[in-house]
């Protein structure tokens, strides 16, 4: 059994394996291998595997295409634009000192006239770069609704290894919502994983953030909300009933999609499977945010098969 020791040969071999054939360490390790008696076969096998990797070095070697580079440069331009108002001065030192002098003179007034930035007011790039590391809610819906979530609407729901819509009766819509709304000025990430067994135009699934929480009994909808929705194989992003322009690939039956909504007080990003569908300013006011997932049937039949596998909420 090969054991890693801290003897000089093992250190030499480790460096040879990293540096590869042709390196000085490799030549020396191969030369010394002839004097090694213990585990020599295993050492030889390591060198052989390393040689094969050397030959396979182009494996998964990719380069940026023109489209990729354009996206990156556009993103940089966007950052520059966002920073234009507070760009770092490159003027001579004397000019900088003059500016500092003016700032000092007006400092006291500035403190009182300029409102302090509040958390949750950041721009899109700040939102996109926020680490949402603290999970504050999670639901897997196996057997019942977790305590921190509640049911909305009148459509029967089934809980077994996920949340599924039942057959429509009196009410076509129903879903679940986080029982306690989140403060509007605190950025959050809402993630919902949905499995699309078989899509149907008669069944709509929506991942939403509402600022009113006035969910109707029949459709489980509210008056002010930003949502991702899928009907059949098509997906849309909707803000207060207005379909926002997006370009998105069609969904596939048998797939599992991860919908992620990032939001602060004024900006939101909607992603599906890590791909950004839409990002921009929105206006849902300063009221607390209700996070949830709903299903809406357009007929009584149990057509379509979509289930909510999990829902998670993160904050910074």
């Amino acid at each position, binding site marked *: 059994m090969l054991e890693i020791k801290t003897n000089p040969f093992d250190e030499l071999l480790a460096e040879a394996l990293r540096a590869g054939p042709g390196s000085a360490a490799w030549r020396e390790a191969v030369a010394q291998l002839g004097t090694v008696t213990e585990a020599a076969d295993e050492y030889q096998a390591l060198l052989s595997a390393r040689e094969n990797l050397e030959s396979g070095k182009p494996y998964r070697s990719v380069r940026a295409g023109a489209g990729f580079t354009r996206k*990156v440069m556009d993103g940089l331009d966007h950052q520059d634009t966002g920073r234009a108002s507070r760009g770092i001065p490159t003027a001579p030192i004397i000019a900088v000192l003059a500016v500092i002098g003016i700032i000092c003179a007006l400092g006291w007034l500035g403190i009182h006239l300029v409102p302090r930035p509040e958390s949750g007011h950041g721009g899109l790039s700040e939102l996109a770069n926020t680490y949402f590391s603290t999970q504050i809610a999670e639901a897997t819906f196996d057997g019942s609704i977790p305590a921190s979530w509640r049911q909305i609407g009148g459509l029967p729901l089934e809980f077994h290894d996920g949340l599924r819509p039942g057959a429509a009766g009196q009410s076509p819509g129903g879903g679940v919502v986080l029982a306690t709304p989140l403060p509007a000025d605190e950025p959050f990430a809402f993630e919902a994983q949905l499995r699309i067994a078989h899509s149907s135009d008669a069944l709509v699934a929506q991942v939403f953030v509402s600022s009113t929480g006035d969910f109707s009994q029949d459709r489980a909808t509210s008056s002010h909300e930003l949502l991702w929705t899928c009907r059949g194989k098509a997906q849309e992003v909707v803000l207060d009933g207005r379909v926002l322009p997006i370009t998105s690939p069609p969904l596939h039956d048998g797939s599992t999609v991860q919908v992620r909504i990032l939001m602060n007080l004024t900006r939101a990003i909607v992603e599906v499977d890590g791909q950004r569908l839409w990002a921009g300013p929105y206006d849902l006011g300063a009221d607390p945010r209700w996070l949830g997932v709903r299903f809406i049937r357009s007929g009584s039949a149990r057509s379509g098969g979509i289930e909510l596998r999990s829902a998670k909420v993160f904050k910074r």
Partner: protein
Amino acid sequence: MAGEDFKAVPLGRASDEELMRRTQQEDRQAFSLLYERYSASVLSYLYRMLGNLEDVESIGQEVFLRAFRFRATYRYPQKLSTWLFTITRNLAINQSRRRRRSPIRNITELNLDGMDISGDPYQVAARATDDVEKREEIARVLVALDALPTDQKEVIVLGIFQDLSYAEMEDITGTKAVTLRSRMFHGLKRLSRSVGVVEEPE
């Protein structure tokens, strides 16, 4: 002061670290050069670690946008490559935690070059040698690379494919060099077993 350590040289011949210093002084052209120098290695690292081209593209963009946005956090004389790969690795880890792998759904929308051949271990092996048996060995090792535990795969990708030293890997991963060497041994040992399968007597 860091700025005094640099000599005035044409932009194209400037070191990575000097380009970053210029980037910190709002020189976008300097950052564009850094992007040209590192985009392929960053994207290839992501492809090797994540295996999903959609993730590679989205995280790859994020790496460079974040590097530019947080350029002020780079401190000379840290190697620029180490700083950049630390960002790349952290984003890759976050992405891995955020989602499980999903199949490539719409490859026509991707904006990367070279993936058509380099993504197939058998095509890579075929280009490496005319020896049919050797081809099989190379392809088996590349296929087995994907099945390695992440920590062993990472040290092989960083050390062998990205050609980083143990010291650089130590900085990037926060893992001691002795542990990285051990992972290199054990990772290669597993890969060597994948080749051993074809060498069994008939």
